[in-house]
């Protein structure tokens, strides 16, 4: 790395080398049985230079040919944006624990046993469910070096366990599922099985939904799938800078319900989305985004912050090997004070939404969402009575989150980077075939 940096500096004023190496192993179960064992090793190097004031960028997997990498970066620098930032010099990083050596020691036999245990627990409840499951473990190593003396190195372990079950009865198909991840290999099969079994119980009976406005309770999975994506876009400093964020000029204003608080937090210990610094070597920090409904901050990387006259929030992320861009590390929505049971009891007629298929495919920038209730339940007179199907729920996050009826008291991690409680919305548009 030092050598590539030194060579690149002969061609450019400034340079930065970012090296990612990872190795992961996955046990995959299909139709209730172990079917695949997979191991993936990968190394990728990214070179960012500033030449004649402009940004050049290239990536490669072959570390033995730095000349081509440097030549590609130089070629792109002719057209790249004018660099408004400086690479950060050496700095100290917060202590964020994300490495557990017991992941490496977790054997393939144990991974398989864990997957088998999960499947057998779920089949113990519903014998004719057909399950796909996966157990993954891995380690990723990050190295960063820049021409201003900045350097960062960390290793992170990750572990995940998930299951998707499919139940076909006649022409009716039901999909249930849950997955959890951590930097520890300590995910319990019974915790996941419990959630899947609850879904199966709630979906046992069929119920019909009307076409009208109804109260809707989003479960944590429902919040993650329907409401979070528009917010991620809206708090992106780049979208704000372009004037395309609906909340871009509302810093310090009450835009959301007072019961809502949201922050980005890459410093939570042993979360796969955590890290001591971002992909540009800027120290990680917890950034409040919404506090009691008031818009507090947006997320910035170095270049966007420089253009906007702000400081980087340590949110520079390289998705798919691309250049750093602002991106949340972990979206955390603060829990409220109402239990899910209390929410349900409050609803005379309404829906619980667990999965809203297609909700993220629309005018996300404007906050619109609309999706098919892939997994959701009808509430009648304070009780869940059965699964609804062929039903569409639509809304706009800015209208929906302006006044929420309640925020759940227990937050749950959804996927690897969202932590959220239930959110109870008083009125959403529902259209159904019944």
């Amino acid at each position: 790395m030092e050598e590539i940096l030194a060579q690149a500096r002969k061609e450019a004023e400034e340079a930065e080398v970012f090296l990612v190496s990872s190795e992961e192993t996955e046990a995959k179960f299909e139709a209730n049985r172990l079917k695949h064992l997979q191991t993936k090793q990968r190394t990728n190097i990214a070179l960012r230079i500033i030449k004649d004031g402009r940004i050049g960028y290239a990536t490669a997997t072959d570390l033995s040919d730095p000349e081509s990498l440097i030549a590609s970066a130089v070629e792109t620098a002719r057209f790249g944006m004018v660099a408004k930032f400086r690479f950060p010099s050496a700095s100290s990083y917060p202590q964020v624990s994300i490495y557990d050596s017991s992941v490496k020691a977790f054997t393939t036999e144990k991974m398989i046993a864990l997957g088998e245990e999960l499947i057998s627990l779920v089949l113990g409840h519903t014998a004719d469910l057909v399950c796909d499951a996966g157990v993954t473990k891995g380690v990723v190593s990050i190295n960063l070096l820049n021409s201003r003396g900045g350097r960062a190195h960390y290793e992170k372990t990750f572990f995940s366990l998930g299951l998707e079950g499919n139940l076909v009865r006649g022409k009716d198909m039901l999909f249930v599922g849950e997955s959890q991840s951590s930097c520890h290999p300590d995910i319990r099969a019974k915790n996941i099985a419990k959630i899947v079994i609850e879904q199966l119980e709630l979906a046992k009976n069929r119920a019909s939904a009307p076409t009208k406005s109804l109260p809707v309770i989003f479960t944590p999975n429902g919040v993650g799938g329907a409401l979070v994506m528009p917010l991620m876009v809206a708090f992106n400093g780049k979208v704000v800078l372009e004037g395309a964020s609906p909340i871009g000029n509302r810093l310090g204003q009450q835009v959301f319900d007072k019961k809502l608080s949201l922050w980005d937090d890459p410093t939570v210990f042993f979360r796969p989305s955590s890290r001591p610094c971002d992909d540009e070597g800027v120290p990680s920090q917890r950034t409040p985004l919404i506090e009691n409904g008031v818009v507090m901050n947006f997320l910035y990387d170095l270049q966007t912050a420089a253009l906007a006259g702000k400081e980087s929030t340590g949110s520079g992320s390289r998705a798919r090997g691309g250049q750093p861009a602002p991106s949340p590390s972990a979206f955390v929505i603060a829990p409220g004070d109402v239990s899910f049971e209390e929410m349900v009891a409050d609803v005379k007629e309404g829906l619980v939404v667990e999965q809203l298929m297609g909700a993220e495919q629309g005018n996300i920038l404007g906050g619109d969402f609309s999706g098919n209730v892939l997994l959701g339940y009808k509430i009648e007179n304070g009780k869940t009575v059965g699964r609804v199907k062929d039903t569409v729920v639509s809304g706009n996050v800015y209208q929906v989150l302006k006044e929420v009826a309640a925020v759940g008291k227990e937050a749950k991690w959804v996927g690897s980077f969202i932590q959220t409680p239930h959110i109870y919305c008083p009125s959403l548009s529902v259209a159904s075939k019944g």
Partner: protein
Amino acid sequence: MMIEDIAQELAHLIKSARADYAEARVEESQSTQISYRGRELESVNRSSAIGGNVRAFVNGGWGFVSFNDFSRLAARVEAAVSQARFVGKGKSRLAEVAPVVDTVPAADNNPLAIPLVTKKQTLDEYNDIIWRTPQIQTSTISYGDGYKKTVFVSSGGSFIVQERADITLRVSAIAAKEGDVQQAGLSLGSRGDFKAINNIHKQIAEMAQNAVMLLSAPKVKGGEYTVILDPVLAGVFVHEAFGHLSESDFIYENERLQKLMVLGTQFGGDHLNIVDTAALPGMRGSYKYDDEGVPATKTYLIREGKLVGRLHSRETAAAMGENPTANARALSYRYPPIVRMSNTYIEPGTVTFADMLADIKEGIYAKNWYGGMTSMEMFTFSAGEAYMIRNGKVAEAIRPVMLTGNVFTTLKNIDAIGNDLDMNQGGGCGKGEQMPLPVSNGSPHIRIRRCLVGGK
């Protein structure tokens, strides 16, 4: 080292592997990504990658290793084989295919050879058109091109070198007014032919005007409507509504699904024919051999409304006693091949667009796409543009709509199929962690009765 040499060494190693079957792929690729946000070009990236994998099949279990460190090839092969031995408890079955030794050059010139300055000039012109449109707040453009060479070798004796070039372009115009943000987009693609994307100034101008127009368009009320889909959206519809359900890896070990998907089952009217084929020249979903070395073919999924075929890998074909269809595809060397679509379309019928409109009193004309998803029984597809149909005519614009259907009823509710088949090259398909895989979708205009539409 040339990837052919690495493949040659792997071919030698897998021949003596203790597996029922083994294969390896070695791949090298170069790509360019250019993106604009706002007035300026934001980033230009050049990437190169080289990597390989070994997949082994023992007693019905699969082992797979992928890597871009080529120093320990024998150990990689051994790892894949021992993983497969660990998993396998049954019987290995693969549909028979004859070994192939072939070299397939890319159909078009390498788009990476086009100077960056030419690409930038074209994209600058498009961005200028968007920015000249009044009330536009901002724009995004993302252009990507790539060139990939893959060598596939199998223990059966295949040695196949395939090259492909690919270009994609996604352009969005964003209009904003008083906290309301609307957008319109355009997606195009080709097999490396830059001409496919360098003369679309008129389409870009219309797209930008659409984004502005949406600011004053109303939202439709949610409910059931008669809808007409344009060929682009109908292509997304057929991909989501039936294409994914035809992928046999969902079905081959699920007895109840198999009962629902018995060949001969009526899914639509006599006028409905759905095809998947990689054997069309020049489409983004086309190839001569899939990633298991099976030669491309044309597969009817639905003929005269009846289920007549499905998409297979060698394993699913053997398990279901059907012929392999060359639909095992992998996104890159990082992944094993899984059952995927290639070019999927509804065959043209006889109805004109005017006749389709004529007897609709109130309906929706939905065009263009944001995306689509499926859970097999139910699916969604999102329009990028929509209009009311009133008394047989296309009337006022409305906000883009999300449409949804159920495979057991919606295909039967298609009551008119147009005569104007068009294929869209701008799509990318996601399945599991492998996305976006180049595919193309197509259809003529189609009309669907009682289609559920999300709204206010």
